């Protein structure tokens, strides 16, 4: 098998003291930028690019990609401990991760997140190794209608089985969609909803909104409830980590399903954020037994984390093989690639096997390094929750504002954080779900573009969404996820009513 030989060759390149050192350094730096909300992997990687001018391309990409893996791991830490997502793709982890940590099981939540993240990443790399050629051909099949279908599916999977009242979900979703239209539209080139503020020209940054909604919003709620963190004390014990690892095989179905979703979304540029939301939504629909989602259910952590990381690793494939980055970080790395003199494209695999397979082999090693490093630090991170609120509260405020500022170095964003902090607080009080708003902000603009492009292509006929097998099957799946749960509920209610009548 050709790919296997090439992979072994790749390991030969990746396992040198220098490269191993770069991996550890990259993962550690990534952890730090991942933990700080707003700084994030794309910023971290672009800060590192000038340093890589002195390295050869293989060493450079190993350093940058290791940093990316580290950031993906780090991003879930603050999601779970403080309800502040360090990365856009770890928003879905807050839904069950934070409640679990509040119950005093922060060690368990962190371990679940890190382990499933590691497993997700490994699943992704295995797919890259085996299917490098086939997968990039699959991605070529996606035109505008197919993209819209994928985004529609992500919405449908997540909204279909919402537990909040449908009217409130709709309000939240619509707010998110309106926010996502602010700025210049790609298809028409028109400037929308900026009200004359130049700062809004590039749109409202999703990360800024999330930092406000979750970080500041949560803080305000905590303050109202008497200045203390709910669920302060948690036992900190390395044995807890081991116990949680033994618990993992129980979630094999969720893991495999989420891994597949992540791989799919990574290869056909939907991105890790869409993958984690979709996977969370489908996990919620798939398992009906036990305590409800959103209250600290283990599957609610396993699903988004596995999908997030398998998508993150798979996103490297379209970047290398097609020159299309499916995540912001991959876009920055692609810029680096061109500066080092490499042209991403189908021929890269043939012309630069040392580079490509060195990178793929390094992905195995640095993800394992990553898991070990983060697991070792779990007790330390979990201990953060023991710090009294009077000390950690102001620190969180500072981190939120610094994080929001680093997104695009704009003071206007600081006001946005404040405004959205209040919005988040109000949503919390009035029981409006935040997740649909966040999802709409992430995918709304992309979905709108894809829809608009499809309409231009078809001269306004909706038939384009059912014009070939691929797009129709995704659409049908989406519609099924949207309608079936409600139908089943309705059916169940009818059946229960029958005997009475």
């Amino acid at each position: 098998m050709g790919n296997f030989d090439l992979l072994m060759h790749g390991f030969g390149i990746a396992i040198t003291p220098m490269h191993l050192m770069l991996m550890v350094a990259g993962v550690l730096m990534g952890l730090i930028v991942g933990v700080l909300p707003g700084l994030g992997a794309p910023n971290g990687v672009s800060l590192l690019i000038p340093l890589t001018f002195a390295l050869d391309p293989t060493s450079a990409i190993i350093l940058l990609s290791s940093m990316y893996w580290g950031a993906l791991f780090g991003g879930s830490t603050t999601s779970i401990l403080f309800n502040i997502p360090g990365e856009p793709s770890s928003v879905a982890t807050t839904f069950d991760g934070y409640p679990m940590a509040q119950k005093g099981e922060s060690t368990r939540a962190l371990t679940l997140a890190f382990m499933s993240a590691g497993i997700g990443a490994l699943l992704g790399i295995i797919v890259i190794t085996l299917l490098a050629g086939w997968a990039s051909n699959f991605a070529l099949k996606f035109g505008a209608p197919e993209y819209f279908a994928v985004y529609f599916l992500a919405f449908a999977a997540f909204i279909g089985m919402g537990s909040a009242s449908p009217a409130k979900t709709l309000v939240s979703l619509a707010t998110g969609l309106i926010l996502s239209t602010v700025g210049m539209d790609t298809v028409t080139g028109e400037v929308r909803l900026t009200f004359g503020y130049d700062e809004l020209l590039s749109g409202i940054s999703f990360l800024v909104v999330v930092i406000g909604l979750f970080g500041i919003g949560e803080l305000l709620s905590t303050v109202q409830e008497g200045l203390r963190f709910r669920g302060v004390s948690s036992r900190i014990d390395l044995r807890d980590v081991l116990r949680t690892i033994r618990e993992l095989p129980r979630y094999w179905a969720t893991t495999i399903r989420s891994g597949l979703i992540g791989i799919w979304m990574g290869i056909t540029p939907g991105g890790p954020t869409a993958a984690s939301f979709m996977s969370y939504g489908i996990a919620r629909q798939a398992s009906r037994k036990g305590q409800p989602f959103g209250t600290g259910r283990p599957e609610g952590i396993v699903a988004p984390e596995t999908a997030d990381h398998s998508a993150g690793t798979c996103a490297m494939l379209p970047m290398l093989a097609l020159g299309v980055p499916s995540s912001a970080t991959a876009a920055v790395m692609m810029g680096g690639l061109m500066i080092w003199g490499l042209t991403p494209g189908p021929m890269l695999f043939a012309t630069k096997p040392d580079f490509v397979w060195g990178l793929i082999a390094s992905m195995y090693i640095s993800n394992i390094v990553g898991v070990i490093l983060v697991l070792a630090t779990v007790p330390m991170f979990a201990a953060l929750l023991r710090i009294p609120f009077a000390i950690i509260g102001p620190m969180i405020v500072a981190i939120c504002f610094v994080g929001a500022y680093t997104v695009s170095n704009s003071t206007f964003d600081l006001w946005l954080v404040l405004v959205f902090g209040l919005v988040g607080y109000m949503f919390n009080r009035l029981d409006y779900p935040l997740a649909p708003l966040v999802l709409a902000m992430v995918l709304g603009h992309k979905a709108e573009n894809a829809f608009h492009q499809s309409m231009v292509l078809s001269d306004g006929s909706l038939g384009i969404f059912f014009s070939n097998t691929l797009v129709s099957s995704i659409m049908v799946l989406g519609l099924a996820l949207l309608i079936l749960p409600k139908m089943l509920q309705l059916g169940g209610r009818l059946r229960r009513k029958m005997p009475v009548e």
Partner: protein
Amino acid sequence: MTKLTTALIAATAVMAAAPAMAQWEPNNRPVEFVVASGAGGGTDNFARTIQSVLSRDGIMDQSIVVLNKGGGSGAEAFLYAKQNKGDANKLIFGTNNVYLLPHVAKLAYTTDDLQPVAALALDEFLVWVKADSPYENITDLIEAAKAEPGQIVFGGSQSKDTDETLVALIEQTSGADFKYVPFNGGGEVGVQLAGGHVAANVNNPNENLGQWQAGAVRPLCVFAPERMAESEAISGDMGWQDIPTCKEAGLDIESYRMPRTVWVPADLPEEAVAYYRDALQKVSESEGWKDYLTRTSQSGAFLAGDELKAFIDENETSTVAVFKAEGWTGE
């Protein structure tokens, strides 16, 4: 106390004045490279290549920070220049969008809020089709569009930007009618073409190079006055020099090229502009820069001063004529 303050002020004044007396240099804050595109795009690579040459060849000692401000087709970066009027530590990297954007969108800046320092390269535009498409040359494509008006799809990057302008120019010159669909960037359009979702695109060489090497797409013609520079064979036995110019292939557009430009905010002293101009000229003569041009198949052209002004005037006039004919100027 007051004496100390006075002494401090005096000392500071002397220190501040000292560099001005010698040769002008940016102050010791890092120099910001403000890029009018997202990370990974053509303009981003342009800026980062210059950054790497400046620091590697020791042309500039200051540390350099690259900021991506690609919002609103790059308008975000130009607005930033306006807000930082007179700040000599900011260089803005763009294309011709600096002076073309205000014509098609209502924006809070004008071209006068920035001053041009230099143009370093001209990026070519080509018409590309999928490798197995029935169109053998540009005339085939135009005839097909005349036979089926509004049915042949041209993909391009952004709306009312260079790509759509070029497609409009082809339509105005030939009388054909295409359907234009905007995507987010050149890379994305390249993949849409390779996947057969659009019939043609007008990508820059670098944006389609990977797909051409793999034999997924092929070029029909290039919008340059003469053929491109000699290169090794890229796909089959074809190199860049084997692509006919559009004019010789029968489409009467002499030249359509995009300058890669560097600007500073308005109201900078002439010495500051001269300092950056000299630095950029050194970059344009370096080995690293020549590598970059070959790799991305762009034509090197160092334009500054009056030459640059004349180029901008000419480019602006001819492009605005296309805008007017399409009714994009909102007049």
